[in-house]
């Protein structure tokens, strides 16, 4: 059996890792918010999505979290009239990425908060561990 305190650190660690991946996806979406296609009428950058899933760690028996799948958002692209763009079609319309900066900001903040929460679990667990160990030292 694994020490529950060790287990909490491991679990929170997996949470931190998952949230970092989410942050990465948000960063990709934000950076590519204006990325149009290269050839006339081609598709621009498609927004990426991320899902998490529960994973049972066989050696310790605890439930960790891991990145399930990095998929794509299949919603429709916005179009804009910009004949000078290399990606403009015969009518001068350009397809823009289906990235909404507001959504991305919200997702970013949520990832940030979740990361902080997991960090706090690690901190508290470490404090409890050292407080318990101090029982041996002081007496």
């Amino acid at each position, binding site marked *: 059996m694994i020490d529950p305190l060790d287990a909490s650190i491991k679990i929170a660690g997996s949470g931190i890792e998952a949230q970092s991946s989410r942050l990465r996806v948000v960063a990709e979406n934000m950076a590519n918010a204006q990325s149009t296609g290269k050839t006339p009428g081609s598709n621009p950058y498609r927004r990426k999505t991320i899902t998490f899933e529960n994973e049972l760690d066989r050696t310790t028996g605890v439930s960790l979290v891991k990145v399930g799948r990095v998929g794509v958002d299949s919603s429709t692209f916005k179009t804009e009239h910009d004949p000078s763009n290399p990606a403009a079609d015969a009518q001068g319309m350009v397809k823009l990425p289906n990235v909404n900066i507001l959504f991305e900001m919200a997702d970013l903040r949520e990832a940030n908060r979740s990361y902080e929460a997991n960090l706090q679990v690690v901190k508290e667990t470490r404090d409890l561990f050292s407080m318990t*160990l101090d029982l041996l030292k002081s007496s």
Partner: protein
Amino acid sequence: MIGAIPLVGTIVGTSAAQAATNASVTTATNAVGDFGQMMTQVVTDAMSKMRTGEATAISGLQGKATVQQVVEAVSDAQGSLQTALAVRDKAVSAYQEITRMTI
């Protein structure tokens, strides 16, 4: 607490033989109250965790491991070293307590 006192005899008795059997330390499940064996295991565990911590720190500097992995490995090593030290200090002070005993 009283129950631990007879163990001291075991420690003193086995400490000579311990050196010979150190190499064949097995899991904690079949170590029946052998304090020396337990300590050996704790120290071995702490040492291997420290090695892992150092290796992870180096691969972190090389960009092969994430900051989080480095922190996790190093603090794991720190935790087990602290535990080993605390238990050792306690054992040494218990031993000193016995040497100071008036007969």
